């Protein structure tokens, strides 16, 4: 049974490390649904958040194969863990003056922000988990979406709770 799951890969901040990881996914036929790469609390370490859809044996293979790469410091599998998950989305829609109010109301419900108003366009910024952004994008289907970009999912495990 194929399920979606997210892993974080901590890698040494070195040239070509992204090529090593993405090449491994490509040549072994693993899917990447979403990929976000960034700096971390340590200068020497970068963090890749990778979402993938696969059956459980494949998921386990992915983690094991990625772990073998020399530049990989740690692989964190977020499955069944308490996490905070976020994605940022920018959507530029084509709206006439009459539709603006309606769009702004919709944004309020989703706690989105209007970040740019152009000649006949409005750009919305939305932050949330993937489901929320998917739902918002679906609602915007009634409008004309000119351009859209999503940052890809980023995830951190939540801190420990008091006993």
């Amino acid at each position, binding site marked *: 049974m194929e399920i979606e799951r997210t892993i974080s890969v901590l890698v040494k901040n070195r040239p070509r490390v992204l090529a090593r990881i993405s*090449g491994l996914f490509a040549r072994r036929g693993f899917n990447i649904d979403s990929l976000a790469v960034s700096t971390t609390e340590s200068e020497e370490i970068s963090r890749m958040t990778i979402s993938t859809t696969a059956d459980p044996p494949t998921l386990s293979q992915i983690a094991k194969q990625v*772990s073998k790469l020399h*530049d990989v410091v740690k692989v964190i599998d977020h499955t069944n863990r308490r996490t905070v998950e976020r994605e940022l989305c920018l959507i530029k829609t084509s709206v006439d003056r009459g539709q603006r109010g309606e769009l702004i109301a919709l944004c309020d419900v989703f706690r989105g922000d209007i970040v740019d108003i152009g000649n006949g366009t409005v750009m919305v910024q939305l932050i949330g988990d993937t489901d929320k952004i998917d739902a918002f994008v679906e609602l915007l289907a009634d409008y004309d979406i000119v351009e859209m970009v999503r940052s890809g999912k980023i995830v951190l495990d939540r801190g420990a709770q008091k006993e």
Partner: protein
Amino acid sequence: MMAQEMIPGAQALLRVFEEENVDVFFGYPGGSVIPIFDALYDSSIKCVLPRHEQGGAHAADGYARATGRVGVCMATSGPGACNLVTGLATAYMDSIPMVAVTGQVRTNLVGSDSFQEADVTGITIPITKHNYLVKEPYQIERFADVVREAFYLARSGRPGPVLIDVPTDVSSGCVPWTPRNIEALDAYEVPEPPDAAAIERAAEMIAKAERPVMMIGGGVVNGNASDEIRELSAKCNLAVVHTLMAKGCFPESHELSMGMPGMHGMAYASYAIQHSDLLVVIGARFDDRITGDLSRFAPDAQVIHIDIDPAEIDKVRYANIGIACDAKTATRALIEAATARERGAWEERLITYKREHPLGYTDDDELMAPQFVVEKLHEVTGGKAIIATEVGQNQMWAAQYYGLDEPRKWCTSGGLGTMGYGHPAAIGAQFGRPGELVVDIAGDGSIQMNMQELTTGTIHKLPYKIIILNNSFLGMVRQWQDMFYDKRYSGVDLTGNPDFVKLAEAHGAVGLRCGDRDKVVETLERAMEVDDGPVMVDFVVSKEQNVFPMIPAGKSFENLIGCPMARK
């Protein structure tokens, strides 16, 4: 603080070679590695000049397989480095420890499409265990450790080839000579000692099994675990099948050796696996050439899988017990945990089956059977030679008819199946083990892929032998066309082959030809007498012999096509 000693990068490279006890390596010069060859001028390390970089890569690989040490090769930037690619891929697939050093254009030119530039680290990511482009200051400052790290990575854990790409200004410019400090390898984990509880459960499974079989692979060679395998087999009376890679790790002359399973394996090996209720798999990875149709492979067997690479466990076949550990340590632990087991009805059944279903071939053609030549080679050499093979029918007949009782006497491209591998590998093996007999079992097709290395052999007076089983065909492809494509022979006819005797002579080697059954032994004996250079023997054999047994691709043991009955 003492001032850091600064030396040219080329010298630092060779100093680390000395630290690593590199006695010989295979290197081909070119513009971007001239600084390294210049430093070699003053060095005691022997650099052998192959006649093609591919030959150098395979020679380093053959050296590594025959000695267990890291094989080293070197090539210049661009085309030189690209010519190493097949050799690296071959070593990667078979987990062979190798370090390849390539020249690269000056750091300020990297990425500008300059003369003889190729993105070699990019090209080789999928076929190396790791690679380095020594371009950034942080790498140049610890260049000596980069080279040390390459050797360490190549031989530790699951071995493999590691490439270091060195721009000309790094090899000719100065780098600090730093003492060994490679703890920076913090991210690299070699599997821990085996899980004691898993070993206990494995021992219990062996004790309870009615029809256990041990299957050993290349991990046993790399882990130097042959003694432990023999001991475990002796203590628990386990029958042993070996993959192509593990040939010799368990004596093939042993009563409990069930030979090699798989597509062209022995019928009794496949029989043993197919009817077993427990497979103890050590250092093998369930390659498709072994399993055929996975869903019908060893259907009744539970699996204990020991492998140094955790990613191999459950990759192809689910393991009831998976133990990520090196073969030697894990097998040792298993020997201690296991209770002695008597030989029983199952083992007797296997021995009987083996006796009743031996290998065999027909030899009624006017030209002799190629298998006959390999059998005679085994006789004449007492089964003691180090065997290299090319790829195709010759490789399978070598595996079937040249029984080996010791490990590290077998150099064959198992995973990648590289034609042209055997000849340079034989050269590498001969450099690694100078006093011993090395034989390349070849086909008339594959020998032509690295023929140029005969010159290397002649110049260094290497007394290895090349046995060409010459059927004037690309035999394995012809066999598939014969069996599965209505005999529509396409692209396999090698009529018009060169005269191999003259070709040997032109290279300064000895050339012999034999097309007569009755003269095979005599010809082989003559070949063995030559001790000051290579001998190439052209055995003219039956043109359309097929390799049997055969389990067609994707099929299983029930579809095994057996050997034609021997008429001897």
